[in-house]
């Protein structure tokens, strides 16, 4: 591995100063290291400086917000900590389960939620579930802070809206309206620790008459970014959730997905699978809601 200068700031201010000083050079932030070290091992990134956030303890942990109805997750929290967090499970069981789908327990012990988002691999598990739950992120620099919805954070493959000098400092999850159900379905035709060929995260709220009050859908592995499927959401909202309505809505995902050909399937195959798994996710949540009403 090419030599580099490693900085290990103890606090956020120091980290931001270092980033301001070196961020326009080829300095990289490191959290858990599972993405950056991998790329450095392969020689795909050879930074001259690496700034570690591991000693910035304020960036770790899960905190309940709004009297337990919402959550704030520190970006240095590992996947495993999110997976096992009682506060996360109390907020939304499917969110904890989603983090349990990331790679293997060994990688979940190392990799962090903030590193995962900033790395912006479109096949990762957490982004679609976080998008479907309406997550927002706070980006902090020496100039100030900005907060934006996660579905506006990703730009392209491994590319986000983050400017040099910015650090992702918090992930916010809003209170969920009562009756909201969530699911994460990951299509894994190869091995269980693989990236998804495609995966679908969905949230659904159904009224007393079985009509869809609200739905949110997001997919991984289906485009250059974790993809929110607004056309599907719009086609479900206000409608009676018959099998036909769900199938017709799920077919609209074909208008937005643009998956790459790779070892996990051809683009054409993944497009079809995106439709199939979108339909399954909505039907599963509809059936759960119907079961609860009876």
């Amino acid at each position, binding site marked *: 591995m090419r030599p580099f200068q*490693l900085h290990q700031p103890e606090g956020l201010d120091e980290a931001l100063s270092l980033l301001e000083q070196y961020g326009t050079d080829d300095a990289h932030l490191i959290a858990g290291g599972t993405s950056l070290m991998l790329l450095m091992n392969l020689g795909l990134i050879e930074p001259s400086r690496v700034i570690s956030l591991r000693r910035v303890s304020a960036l770790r942990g899960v905190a309940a917000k709004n009297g337990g109805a919402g959550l704030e997750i520190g970006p240095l929290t590992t996947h495993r900590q999110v997976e096992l967090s009682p506060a996360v499970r109390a907020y939304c069981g499917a969110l904890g389960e989603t983090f349990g789908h990331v*790679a*293997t327990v060994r*990688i979940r012990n*190392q990799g962090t939620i903030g590193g995962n988002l900033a790395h912006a691999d479109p096949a990762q598990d957490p982004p679609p579930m976080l998008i479907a739950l309406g997550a927002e992120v706070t980006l902090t620099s020496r100039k100030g802070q900005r907060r934006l919805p996660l579905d506006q954070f990703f730009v392209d493959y491994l590319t986000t809206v983050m400017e040099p000098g910015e650090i992702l400092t918090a992930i916010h999850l809003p209170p969920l309206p009562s009756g909201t159900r969530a699911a994460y379905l990951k299509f894994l035709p190869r091995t269980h620790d693989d990236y998804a060929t495609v995966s679908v995260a969905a949230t659904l709220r159904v009224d007393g008459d079985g009509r869809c009050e609200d739905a949110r859908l997001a997919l991984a592995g289906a485009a250059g970014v974790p993809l929110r499927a607004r056309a599907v959401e719009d086609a479900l909202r206000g409608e009676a959730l018959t099998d036909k309505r769900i199938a017709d809505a799920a077919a609209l995902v074909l208008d937005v997905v643009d998956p790459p050909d790779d070892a996990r399937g051809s683009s054409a195959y993944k497009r079809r699978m995106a439709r199939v798994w979108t339909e399954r996710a909505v039907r599963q949540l509809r059936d759960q809601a119907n079961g609860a009403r009876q």
Partner: protein
Amino acid sequence: MTTASEHHLRFELNGTPRELTVRANTRLIDLLRDDLGLTGTKEGCSVGVCGACSVLLDGQLISACLFPAAFADGARVTTIEGLAPDADHLTALQDAFIRHGGFQCGICTPGQIMAAAALLQDNPRPTPDQIKTWMMGNLCRCTGYYKIVESILAAAEASTPVVPRQPVGIR
């Protein structure tokens, strides 16, 4: 060419306090194998997939190939060399891998045993399905995994955590 920064490191390795200096671009696996001669930990894929470099950091399973050695400052590191209490004993887990044929060529075995040790620490009586789920990050190209699962189940049922080391050979 940038030079590497140097970092003073104080940590506990297999129960012994160590103090040394590492370069920024030294990974934990490089420190263990090249600087300290602990070659039980293997490097397979270098991308966190194969599990051959599995070690415990403060009791948690990690990939030493994805971990800068400088990050071990203040931590407790356990490698395959640190499981058995002395040269005359093995852990029940190591003994079970020998008795149940949990390995053939052996290259993945230190990683398998470290992963299994972390599992048994987390869940002392795992079911076969729980073993398969936990161990899926440790690849083995010899055993077909059945014997590994069998070894871990046997270790979970062992009556003592440590057993005398028995001579091993062809009868």
